[in-house]
């Protein structure tokens, strides 16, 4: 290619000794485009994932313990509250399983969302490498948090099994679909708000403030069926409620998923996803160069 170029445009390399624009057209066609971009993406995400894992295992060991303890405390707390308020005999489903299958997915969602808000800024030094894009860091982070919660889930299930709770989900595939979809849902909002939050700091503060109200308003620790119809109607505008109802209903045989609206969940996943991708695409260079 080098020889071709010079035989075509003469030997004058440097400041505009050759017909610049004509040569540019020629090079544009001859230059390999993004080289194997899928392979680059996989390699970079894998490297970033392992990097984050090593950092977690080394420096922030307490962080992982908290990851495990937080849902555990919440599960115990809400189970106790439930038994005190309603009496243990009044409900037909297993309270601990109900709380666990609500809390863990909810915290998974919250972690993916909030960690995505910081991920673009956190990895700034790594954009010195032309092969690392901010988006790769975002994907690696979401994978990382998801896999941490997979470990947390297994430990909690084991604990529950040891104290004699029936942990087998009634509809395993349904639960898995629900959780994977919830991860995607968290990622689309994480991407959109992460990109916006890079320019408007207030968004990041607002989202962290929102996490407690969301816990209360997302049907995490109560089934929707127990609410009066008016409250139910309003809560169903919250897309997270649909996810929680779906996971609860799939996990426990005594509950059902009659309030779940798939098309509503789909809209709330796909619209922010595409909006986020579009905004990211427009502002990628601002993450790298500032």
């Amino acid at each position, binding site marked *: *290619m*080098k020889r071709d*170029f*010079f035989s075509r445009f003469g030997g004058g*390399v*440097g*400041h*505009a000794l*050759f017909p*610049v624009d004509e*040569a*540019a057209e020629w*090079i544009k066609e001859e*230059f*390999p485009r993004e*080289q194997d971009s899928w*392979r680059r993406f996989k*390699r*970079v995400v*894998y*490297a970033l994932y*392992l*990097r984050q894992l*090593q*950092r977690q295992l*080394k*420096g922030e060991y307490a962080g992982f313990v908290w990851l495990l303890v937080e849902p555990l405390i919440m599960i115990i707390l809400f189970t106790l509250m439930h038994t005190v308020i309603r009496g243990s005999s009044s409900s037909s489903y297993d309270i601990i399983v109900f709380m666990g299958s609500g809390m863990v997915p909810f915290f998974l969602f919250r972690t993916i969302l909030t960690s995505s808000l910081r991920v673009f800024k956190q990895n700034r*030094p*790594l*954009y*010195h*490498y*032309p*092969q*690392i894009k901010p988006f790769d860091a975002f994907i690696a982070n979401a994978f990382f948090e998801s896999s941490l919660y997979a470990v947390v889930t297994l430990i909690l299930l084991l604990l529950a099994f040891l104290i004699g709770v029936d942990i087998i989900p009634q509809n395993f595939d349904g639960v898995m679909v629900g959780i994977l979809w919830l991860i995607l849902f968290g990622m689309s909002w994480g991407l959109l708000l992460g990109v916006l939050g890079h320019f408007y700091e207030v968004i990041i503060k607002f989202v962290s403030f929102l996490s407690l109200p969301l816990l209360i308003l997302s049907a995490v620790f109560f089934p929707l069926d127990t609410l009066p119809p008016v409250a139910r109607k309003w809560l169903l505008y919250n897309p997270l409620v649909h996810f929680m109802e779906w996971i609860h209903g799939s996990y426990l045989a005594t509950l059902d998923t009659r309030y779940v609206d798939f098309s509503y969940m789909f809209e709330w996943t796909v619209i922010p996803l595409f909006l986020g991708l579009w905004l990211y695409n427009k502002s990628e*260079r601002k993450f*790298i*160069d500032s």
Partner: protein
Amino acid sequence: MIWLHRLTKFYEKDQVLFSDVNLLIPSGVTVGILGENGCGKSTLLKLIAGTELPSSGRIALDGSLLWAGSVASAMHAQMTVEQSLRFLGRLYIEEDRLMEEKVEEILRMADLTQKRRMLWSKVPADLKQKLKFAALCMIETDHLLIDGGLAPKNDKFFLEKMAERMRRSTTLLASGNRKILSEYCDAGIVIHNRKFYYFDAIARAQKFFESVKKHDKTDT
């Protein structure tokens, strides 16, 4: 091969580094970059490395690239030397086994084999410097961008390795050291008055740069 097309870079409107420059650097040469302080020598490298973006214009290259300034950003203060190096290796080498071998070679060259489990923040500065150059020598890429020196304290062994390494790739070298430039470079670019002047021989580039400097001095 590195190709710059209609490249313009400015920070503020009145601080233009280059305007509308074109440049084609053929594969396999080692190019020295000459210019007054603050004329944009290292900015040019950053632009090619992709960590800074051009105000307008286009940059393209056909293959992988390693920029000397990026090595340190792969090293995380709270990770061990070995872990950080593995991360760096994974960015360039797909196969895990080859990557491990490469990491081993870098550690050996930088005399860090015994201290591989040391946290990066605890590594003394001179060893950090050694590691940077060892990584530059060992990680093979099609393009190599270096600003500043070629070896820690002009160590003979490192200089030899680096010369070999530069022969295997397209190298851009921004250095203020005349001797280094004339010893290691084939060609030269002079940045002057927001334009690039490319010379096939480094000696001619240096001569041009000297005459330009003299000219500027008599002007003022």
